[in-house]
């Protein structure tokens, strides 16, 4: 039982770690933006009166939420390949993460939509706002404001989950770690460093979303409560 840790031997690979961390953030950023769009559309779709669209959106959300991300990534990876489409590992990773986080975002956004009081919409109709104006100002923006903390947590979890993309050889942080540990035989040190980097990344993301929230929701900043 002797544990000898040699961090310098691993730390000298810092440019690789840095490149991996940057790619992880890029993956997270793309998937967050695209997933937020997809999820919002799915949440809107689930609320429509068209049974076909609502059913399709529900099926999408439930399928994704009840299967592992790892399986989804492989299905997208091999599914695109079997269709004869060739994409980079990065593109496939963004696509799979977007599809995944879209389903969770849809559930969060649905909760936001359901929390909009009926009277608020009726009041907007009474003020002769157009349908589009009502959707944008009275439903969508207040809903986002309400569920913003939940969305933030979900997107941080997405960043952490992007580590799974190492399995299709997207060169993000975990993939870099796998490579370095097989090269240096310093597995324990490598993964400790990577764990610390992930904790830092998640703190940075939380701080970023907090700052973004202050800019996006001035009302919340002044009153301390969502609309």
């Amino acid at each position, binding site marked *: 039982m*002797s544990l000898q840790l040699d961090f310098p031997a691993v730390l000298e690979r810092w440019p690789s770690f840095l490149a991996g961390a940057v790619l992880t953030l890029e993956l997270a950023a793309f998937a967050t933006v695209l997933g937020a769009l997809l999820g919002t559309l799915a949440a809107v779709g689930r609320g429509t009166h068209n049974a076909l669209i609502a059913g399709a959106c529900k099926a999408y959300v439930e399928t994704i939420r009840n299967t*592992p991300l790892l399986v989804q990534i492989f299905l997208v990876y091999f599914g695109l390949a079997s269709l004869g489409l060739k994409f980079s590992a990065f593109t496939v990773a963004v696509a799979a993460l977007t599809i995944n986080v879209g389903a*969770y975002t849809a559930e969060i956004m649905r*909760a936001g939509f359901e929390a909009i009081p009926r009277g608020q919409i009726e009041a907007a109709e009474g003020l002769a706002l157009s349908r589009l104006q009502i959707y944008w100002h009275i439903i969508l923006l207040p809903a986002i404001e309400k569920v913003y903390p939940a969305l933030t947590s979900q997107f941080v*979890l997405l960043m952490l989950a992007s580590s799974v993309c190492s399995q299709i050889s997207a060169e993000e942080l975990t993939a870099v770690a796998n490579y370095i540990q097989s090269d240096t035989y310093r597995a324990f040190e490598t993964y400790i460093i990577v764990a610390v980097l992930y*904790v830092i990344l998640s703190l940075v993301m939380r701080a970023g979303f907090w700052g973004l929230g202050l800019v996006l929701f001035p009302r919340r900043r002044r009153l301390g409560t969502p609309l």
Partner: protein
Amino acid sequence: MGGHLNINHLMFLGQGALWTVGLSVIALIGGGIVGFVIALARISPLKSVRIASAVYVQLIQGTPLLVILFLGYFGLAAIGLKVSPLAAAGASLTLYVAAYLGEIWRGCIQSVPKPQWEAAEGLALSRTQRMTKVILPQAIRIATPPTVGFMVQIIKNTSLASVVGFVELMRSGQIVNNSLFEPFAIYAIIAVTYFAMCYPLSLFSQKLEQRMGRGRSTLAPA
């Protein structure tokens, strides 16, 4: 190479599915025990205990499960313990699940109405009596729906144990795929199997939540 999917392959996948269930149960029991301690530590009267448990939760929740699994697998080996993939995966999942269940349960314990705590104190119950006789019986009712919901996350997350060589459903799918090379069909079967395990639990959790008259929580690690 070659050949078609036959009954032997399906039997092998079925065996993998059983190990997925087994590993999930290990993670639930191990994570449940440690998570309960974490939940109590988070509301301990001792500040140092509160801080230590909060740091633990923050560290685990800020690290991907995949990295925790690698740390468990290589870390236990680095301190000279020879561990099987099952032990490494079980230990890592226990640590991971404990951080999330601990936070969920802390929330449930704290959501027991304040007058209940005060009444128990007013009846001169000791701290232990107050917890076991007044607070926990009510907290368990509140905690049941989110815990069942989290079991879905546990089952899905055991798929990551495949990367440290534990032959559960995902890994057995990869092994079958290595001999047949029909990835799309095989991973589709795997996905359907996971769905069949998870969806009933999701529905059950939703039912429980509706019965409790609470909104459903959608936050979940992917």
